[in-house]
């Protein structure tokens, strides 16, 4: 059964160049782009006003920004290799200079933050996966070596038990955070992987990239559960809805798709742009309806909500 998502509004030209990453909190969306500033947009107001600009955050631009669930901490990673920690009080973000200084020379590309904001996971360009404890002066508590292929994406399961990373050579690794065991690799993708995402319960891992197909894995067995086919370009971003019923994906040709996990089918496709959509994220579920946000080469942060009967 198909579903409809309606354009809900957008922060047009939020950045002067491509938006590479979006991070979502209860009331805000933080967008990161090739320009130095991070932008904070309110999702409480249907006009999605800009509430803060973190100017000069990353001189050479920023490719990843992540937040914890409560929206008190954010971490951003810049093209120059600079990683910054941000903390939020009363909806206002400021740089956490001490925590940022601890993370100097982190050597990571993609980053993920645990739900409680304590642990930062990152994967490097030479395939190393590290975990750092931000409540203990950024001490590194895990360092896993993989086969050296560029780590393009990483995710932490919401319960904090698993880390998954996707690599340029098509490899997807999962390992548990409880013990420093070697990761095991998941087969199925041969082309570069661009996105990995754990389901809210942590039972399923979705992975996708240049193969254009989204592969769902059972995280306990490593077996493939399903292949979701329908994108006709490289898949760049994945996001699970709060309930785990829907998976959101975006691709290089500007398509955004919503997949039903129940039926393993695509239930909605947005094609408002022909330019790459680098990042998609569901907004936290509210009483009103389900909604998501997208950002990419058209430079705007767009919002969509489910069309309800009335």
């Amino acid at each position: 059964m198909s579903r409809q998502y309606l354009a809900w509004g957008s922060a047009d030209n939020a950045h002067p160049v491509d938006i590479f990453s979006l991070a979502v909190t209860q009331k805000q969306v933080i967008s990161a782009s090739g320009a130095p500033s991070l932008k904070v947009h309110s999702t409480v107001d249907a006009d999605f006003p800009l509430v803060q600009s973190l100017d000069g955050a990353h001189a050479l631009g920023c490719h990843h920004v992540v937040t914890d669930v409560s929206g008190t901490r954010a971490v951003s990673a810049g093209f120059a290799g600079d990683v910054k920690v941000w903390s939020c009080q009363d909806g206002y973000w400021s740089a956490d200079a001490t925590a940022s200084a601890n993370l100097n020379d982190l050597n990571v590309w993609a980053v993920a933050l645990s739900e409680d904001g304590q642990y930062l996971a990152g994967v490097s360009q030479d395939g190393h996966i590290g975990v750092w404890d931000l409540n203990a002066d950024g001490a590194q508590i895990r360092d896993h070596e993989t086969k050296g292929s560029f780590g393009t994406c990483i995710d932490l399961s919401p319960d904090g038990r698993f880390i998954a990373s996707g690599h340029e050579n098509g490899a997807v690794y999962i390992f548990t955070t409880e013990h420093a065991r070697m990761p095991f690799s998941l087969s199925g993708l041969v082309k570069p992987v661009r996105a990995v995402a754990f389901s809210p319960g942590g039972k399923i891992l979705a992975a996708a990239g240049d193969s254009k197909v989204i592969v769902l894995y059972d995280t306990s067995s490593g077996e493939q559960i399903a292949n979701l086919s329908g994108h006709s370009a490289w898949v760049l971003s994945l996001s699970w809805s709060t309930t785990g019923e829907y998976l959101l994906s975006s691709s290089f040709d500007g398509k955004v798709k919503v997949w039903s996990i129940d039926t393993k089918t695509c239930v909605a496709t947005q094609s408002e742009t022909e330019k790459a959509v680098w990042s998609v994220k569901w907004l936290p579920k509210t009483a009103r309806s389900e909604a998501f946000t997208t950002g990419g080469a058209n430079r705007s942060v767009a919002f969509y909500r489910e069309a309800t009967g009335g």
Partner: protein
Amino acid sequence: MALNANILRTVIPQPDRQACVRAYIDNTLTDLVDQLSLPPTEAQPSIRIRRRATPANCTINRGSGALEAVPNLEVYRTYSWPGATAYESWKFTVIIRILAIIDQAVRSGQWVSKRDIYYIDPAYFRSQDTVDTVIDELAYTIGVDRGALNVEAAGKGLIAGAFALKRDSRLVLDAGFATQDTLVPRIQQNDEIDILATRWVLVIEKEAVFHRLVRNDYYNRAVAGQGILITGKGYPDIRTREFIRHLFDATCNDRRPPRFYALVDGDPHGVEIMSTYKYGSLAHVHDNASLSIPGLKWLGLKVSDAIIASEATGSDGILTLKPRDRKKILAMLRNSPVLANDGPEAEWRIELQRMLMLNIKAEIELMYELEGGLEMWIDRRMFRQE
């Protein structure tokens, strides 16, 4: 210390070599003047040239098996005026004329190219080869390299298409009828370029791509009309940049000026080469104002072009960035005023960031495999930019 010693070794001899050159020229010219002041019956103006090794006076070293010059065999050839043959007298005057040009270059500290020397009097020198040979022979005779004569290599740029170059109302180059690749000519102050019906000028990074387009007669067959193909073979030399700038200046006030496009690889070097054409290089900061091509537009190759092409052809033409490519991009983003965040080329900057993001790059040759080839792709792309 070792490093310093090295620097000293390479730097110090330069004035010596220049002094050698000046001394040789002075002595030679003084001798000639002395000879010419003698009564005609006694005068024997001549110039002695040491010949370089030719296959005839080379031998195989029995030990190393390598071809080398016969030791202690100095081959000299003396050219006299008026000489025994017409050839000898012509060669004598050619040597003297070139010597005079070098003399002027060395004294004024200016550089001159083999190509420039040839164009001073093409009819007299007859061929570029004559000029090249005499310069090399003079350098060998004096015992220095060509650089000490303030003579640089000929410009490396190549050009094809419908244009003609007039100097003092004489046609010196008509590329429209050229059957071979034409070297980009040196432009002089009062040169006139007639670019006839040219609708576009395509500045190409790579020589191989240039040759393909020339072979396919693209400058005549493009949907956008007649055009000019030009390549500086990688990072362009001053000559090539100067010529394109001249084309640009000569046409920018036309009612329908031709479009200037850059066709470069989708990698950091491609972007830097395009930036050199459009804005100039750090190595020649003083000249950039007279060499830049403000109207240059980026035709390709962009990341999205490459991805679409590789998907369409099923080729593996998309390449992975090497760590040094990533370093190069970061250095460009950090240091280039052209690519600065508030600089004039936001689209170039974001394209480099997309390369970093996807960790990919691509070469123009990828487009060969498209249906209709690179040519049809350029046709479409020019149409879109019109």
